[in-house]
């Protein structure tokens, strides 16, 4: 998709259940797969990447839809840990 639409036009939105998993997924689409397991090993796409629970994304979604789809998980997740991890990955590796 990054090739087809241009990496500057792609935003990746994650739904991982905790900080470390979010960080690994975010690193995969920015710096390259840190686990060296998949096709993005050694490929640095530098895409914009957010977690669905980050305020930047939450603010863009219809409040009722968000409550129906994410409301329950928002109560369960460690939102602070996820946001810190995501901001760290973006500041280091996102190119756009």
């Amino acid at each position: 998709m990054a090739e087809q639409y241009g990496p500057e036009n792609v935003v990746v939105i994650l739904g991982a259940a905790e900080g470390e998993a979010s960080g690994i997924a975010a690193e995969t689409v920015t710096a390259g797969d840190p686990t060296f397991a998949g096709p993005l090993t050694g490929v640095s796409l530098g895409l914009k990447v957010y977690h669905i629970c980050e305020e930047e994304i939450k603010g863009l979604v219809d409040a009722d839809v968000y409550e129906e789809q994410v409301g329950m998980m928002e109560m369960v997740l460690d939102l602070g840990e996820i946001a810190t991890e995501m901001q760290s990955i973006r500041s280091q590796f996102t190119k756009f």
Partner: protein
Amino acid sequence: MNAVIKSVAYTLTHAPDLVVHAGSTQTTERIVNPESDYLKAITGGLRPFEDVVNYAPNQTYIGGMTPAQLAEIPMPWYENGLPQASRFGKFGEIMPQQELYLLLQICDSFDLVLLETDYAAKAAEEAAKHPMLVELLARAKAGVETAVIEAAMADGAEGLYQDGKLVGCVKKAHSIDENLSAHVILENLVSKATSVISLLNLVKNSGINRADIDMVIDCSEEAVGDMNQRGGGNMAKASAEIAGFTGATGSDLRAFCAAPVHAIITAAAMVKSGTYKNVVVTAGGSTAKLGMNGKDHLKKGVPVLEDVVGGFAVLISENDGTSPEILSESVGWHSVGSGSSPQAVITALVTDPLDKLGLKITDIDKFSPEMQNPDITKPAGAGDVPASNFKMIGALAVKRGELERAQLDEFVTRHGMVGFAPTQGHIPSGVPYLGFGREDIMAGDIQRAMFIGKGSLFLGRMTNLFDGASFVVQKNSGVSPAGSVSEEQVRGLIATALRDFAKSLGGE
């Protein structure tokens, strides 16, 4: 009347050499990076049998200690073993690799398993001391010279190793059919053997006459067949044969990790309908998943904890008036149209069936979702799976106004438990608490428990749908076919009453 959970058995089989030679993480590494440091290091991360027996989550799985007792032991549990633990627990046992290899041969009907002469003799000697294996020894074959095994290895056999030394092999069952390759036959025989040992423990635990078992459902994750019917199946009947269930038929039910819950729902309905009186749901474990997270474990200085093959068997029978009932009138299922957000999934599996029963989330005393051992999953970056599930269920209770948000942590402790099952896909999925749940209900400690299985169907590339199912087990209502009054008895009672009445009219 609802069917009951009559008896349960759980087994683990230690398979350290199969971790190295049959686990998919390791077999993949051997193909893509044969000289990797990981492959050189993995043997050093394997645990001896004693450590596996002393490992508290394993003891919990076989009924040697309760989940509540496990929760009191500080993590990491691999650093806090229980000295002098027994390989036998009240629900089952932990079997060493040598007995597994012998059992593979016992389960092999086509002379595909070869064991070296001395090794076979030693294994038979040990098995003769085993309370259940001893009856199967007549099926074991004489050992062969190492040269015979080496010749088979040169012709595509899979090696069986003990402490890294070649002690036997599994031959391929066809010259070109991949579905009958040595790798697949080994995988299927291990699944069969670990199902068989669970069935034998179930017979011991329940005291049932084997001939009284009518139906066996296998809900493991392997495919049995050849190139013309790759998943032809009936592992169930193959295992029932070795276990001596002469009156039983069988069939397989496959649904990834959700299969055990689907199978128990099916078995309960079969018994409730009167089709069968005694149905056994069974599953052996998976060689492919051995050492699945071994890379992460070794990287973090953790032993290779995924070193056991899991198994279980559940006897579901006609209502006896005492054993806990499976509430067949309202089970949970994730439908094609349910949606895949966690909220949609928990609603479909937990609250939809409870609404039909007129129950709240808090009316379920214990939930048993995916019960993976967090000692294994946390170092692998997958978090604490059962704890996440309890939090999600509690969060839904908050959304429904059945729980205060401040009570969420307490809900997780009170209605949940620590995970204690190996990461063998279907093995941790809902059913590990069935044994303790049955006991807790019969002791009056709890009224009811909900069992939840989930499956990742996308892995087979046929659909992107998620799957899951659930059922509730509840204290027996106390009315059984034996305890109820028949029409004939009612007639007799009326006749006696009329006679007495007539006599009283006659002035006697």
